[in-house]
């Protein structure tokens, strides 16, 4: 396990296979909280924290409990329960010990359980990587990719407020068109083989 290969995993997860623009994971919260850069940043940070920890936990649970007993078919159920419990624990921990973070990220935490980026990252890591370090780095980098996409799009969306589209395009369809243009920009990375 060399540093280069970890860096390659990170680079590929952030830009080449960006969670939003190439894998379509976490698009619901992406459209939901991207109206202002400040909320987008808060949500992105909360997601980064949860995905990094959950990727570590789910990978270890898969290696130490599910695999030895041949229970891999329970992956989906086991992982979603781990994520739900983890999010709850993080919320309680922040509330008790780091109130500053709780006030900044608290309102986003309950939404994260049902963010498909979290479960998606856990399932992809188990499928593609063989060590817990790789899985955790992959989770962290994917989440950073999510954060970057969210910030870029929040900036774009602030300007959309001033647009006057045809009536049927008002709101979400216009946001989706803008997201399509951002995805086009990211597709410039898509040919890179790592």
């Amino acid at each position, binding site marked *: 396990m060399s540093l280069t290969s970890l860096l390659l995993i990170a680079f590929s997860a952030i830009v080449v296979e960006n969670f939003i623009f190439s894998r*379509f*994971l976490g698009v*619901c919260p992406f459209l939901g909280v991207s109206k202002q850069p400040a909320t987008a940043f808060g949500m992105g940070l909360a997601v980064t924290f949860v995905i990094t920890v959950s990727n570590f936990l789910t990978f270890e649970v898969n290696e130490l409990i599910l695999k030895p007993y041949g229970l891999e078919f329970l992956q989906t159920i086991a992982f979603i329960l781990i994520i739900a419990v983890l999010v709850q624990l993080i919320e309680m921990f922040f509330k008790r010990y780091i109130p500053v973070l709780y006030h900044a990220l608290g309102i986003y935490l309950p939404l994260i359980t049902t*963010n498909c980026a979290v479960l998606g990252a856990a399932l992809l890591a188990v499928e593609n990587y063989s060590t817990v370090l790789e899985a955790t780095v992959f989770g962290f980098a994917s989440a950073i990719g999510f954060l970057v996409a969210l910030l870029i799009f929040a900036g774009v969306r602030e300007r959309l407020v001033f647009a006057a589209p045809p009536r049927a395009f008002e709101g979400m369809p216009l946001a*989706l068109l803008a997201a399509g243009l951002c995805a086009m920009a990211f597709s410039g990375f898509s040919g890179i083989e790592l």
Partner: protein
Amino acid sequence: MKFSIGKLARDGLLDNNPVFIQLLGICSALAVTTSLTNGIGMGLAMTAILVCSNVFISLLRRFIPSQARIAAFIVVISTFVTMVDLLLKAYLPSLSESLGLFIPLIVVNCIILARAEAFASQNGVVASLFDGLFMGLGYTLALILISALRELFGSGSLYGVRILPETIPAVAFFQTPAGAFIALALVTAAARALIEKLKAAKAAKIKH
């Protein structure tokens, strides 16, 4: 408990369509709609799970404590998702392969949790069954429209059969992620305009 099947059908398919109006379940609507086969497969898998989870949660609604309801819903939903996942792997391996990650991800699809929370946990079993069925079909309808657009223009065929003549070049753009966002935007705008028209026509009819 009184309910009208017609109203539930209209709600799920048009007035409150999960994709076009509520914008839920967008991730899978973008990811798997590269071909009509995938769109229909995903839509039907989703409908089956939605019906089962709605019925089951409605049956259990008096026993689930409200503080732990989200966790309870997720366990019920993920059980059905695992069953559908295993069935697809066994009997339709090629479809299972192309839908890939997005079958297990139905667990966290907002449509199912939203119906559990907003409808099944407050309504009777039969009403919940029809609500699940029509919401699922509304999602399927949306996926069919999006994937038909993407497959027709992206590769000139529908359901794997060539439709457009060879002289019209395929626009590979519609098969890319960026094309997915734009196809969804176009179909959503068209569907919204149509639904608005239908609503206005209905309102005018009532007035007379």
